[in-house]
């Protein structure tokens, strides 16, 4: 070649460049494989803040759980809002909890007042930490 780079050197340079790109692509693939994350395990512990946030008699819905936290004279009661009939999310109404799918109704203790559900809503474990923090567990 007139530029001074021999044909052999050019091919060598091209080969090395291609192998370098291939190596980088391969390395990227390996890193991507190693960095792949599986679906995180579903959350089972929910920090609902300090108990002072909840007035006596209050009923607070947490759609992300889904659950309702009820402050009773005896403490806190957490009910799962998953309908025991087919698993729809139960809605809080002034007179109780109602499933929008098939009309099951529950009282504020989770007891069935109206079918087709026959099982009461699940009661969730409520822990209160020493500093007054409320934690609800769904498992």
């Amino acid at each position, binding site marked *: 070649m007139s530029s001074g780079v021999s044909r052999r050197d050019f091919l060598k340079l091209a080969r090395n460049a291609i192998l370098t790109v291939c190596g980088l692509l391969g390395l990227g693939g390996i890193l991507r494989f190693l960095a792949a994350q599986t679906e995180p395990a579903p959350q089972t512990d929910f920090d609902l803040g300090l108990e002072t946030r909840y007035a006596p008699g209050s009923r607070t819905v947490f759609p992300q759980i889904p659950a309702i936290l009820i402050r009773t004279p005896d403490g806190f009661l957490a009910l799962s809002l998953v309908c025991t009939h087919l698993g729809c*999310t139960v809605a809080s109404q002034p007179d109780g909890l109602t499933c929008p799918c098939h009309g099951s109704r529950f009282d504020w203790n989770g007891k069935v007042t109206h079918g087709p559900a026959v099982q009461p809503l699940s009661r969730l474990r409520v822990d209160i930490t020493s500093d007054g923090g409320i934690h609800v567990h769904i498992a």
Partner: protein
Amino acid sequence: MRRWLLIASGLLLIVLSVIVWQESHRIKPIALIPSLTGQVEYCLTCHSNLAQISSSHPVQTFGCVICHGGERLALTADLAHSTLRGGANPSDYSVVQTSCGGANCHSGPASSYSDHIQRATTSIQETYAGAIASMLYTFGAEPDLNARFATSAVQAPGSTSGITSLSLFAPAPSSNPAILAFASNCLNCHISGQPLPGAKYFHFTGCAACHTPTQIVPGTNQTLPPTGQIHKLTTAISYTQCDTCHNRGNYDLRTMTFQARQDQPTDRLHDYYQPIAQFTSCEYQLDCIDCHTRVEAMGDGSLYRQETDIQYIQCKTCHGTLADLPQTKTMTDPNDLAFRLAQLNPVVDLKLGDTILVTSKEEPLWNTRLLSDGTYELFDKAAGAQYTIPLVKGSGCQQDPSRQDSASCHLCHSVRR
């Protein structure tokens, strides 16, 4: 040697480039984990724009696969749809038990009002038993009008009608030509039958024949999707859906062919069932399902010869007679069927303590209610319109008190067409 090494590295680069390109264009799946199954599905990757099928079947709870089948993790249409149940219609009776059945769904016990599949698949609208029996008797193939055959073999061990099974109607090739023509031309309108060609006849099969609206309801802003995909189930069934079978013509028994209606009805009175029939105002102003209850339309689990064997609603069911007010029931049980039905189609806010009309078989007419002034109101199940039900007792009705059946009412109250 070096040349081959260069060629090999070039090929390697091409292969890796193709892989990178494919990876960059790979469909990003949209995962859904329905609470009922807990298994991830990727159907929403392509179908996220579909409307929710009904408030009773939210996709977050049911997902898609539990009803439709299909390959839940596939990302290509062909593979994903390769194992769909019933094609696009999982409610077809050939697959309905798998798609819609289950003790908590639609094939549970009658005591929990979830025996829909058993009732619907034994109903007259599916078996067509009376029409088949009449035709076979007319052409001398059977000695009487008793029902022996249906559009499919069906068993109903608990049937209280005296008919516990029907055989498949499949006439031999050597049968009377009229019978063969009937089998070929006249079975379009049972629920599993493929509809006649034409938009006005179009309906799906199985549960969707009635519960998926394929007809535009006049006076509404309803439109049908241009894709032909109608993803909806409803209990608010308009008369227009019933019309896909019941209002488009008649079968000519001489030729055993369907004779389509030639008129083009432009008003509700004429766009209603058979042209020869007579109607009172409520019979054409209301929707079919306002009078023809769930048992009349979907059966009660027993096998019957013909519709009149199970049809029992009379004018007096709602209007009473000269001597008696209509039969009623005060709602005291929160688990009463009436509440379930009203919840599915909330045209009326039914409450404990309300008094509603009931049929002679004590089937609740949940869309009615006794008002404080002693009159009754009725809400149209499809349109939601409110009507006041006039009572015969205390009216100027001059009918013979012993003739309070519907046919007698029609003598005075039919509307001229």
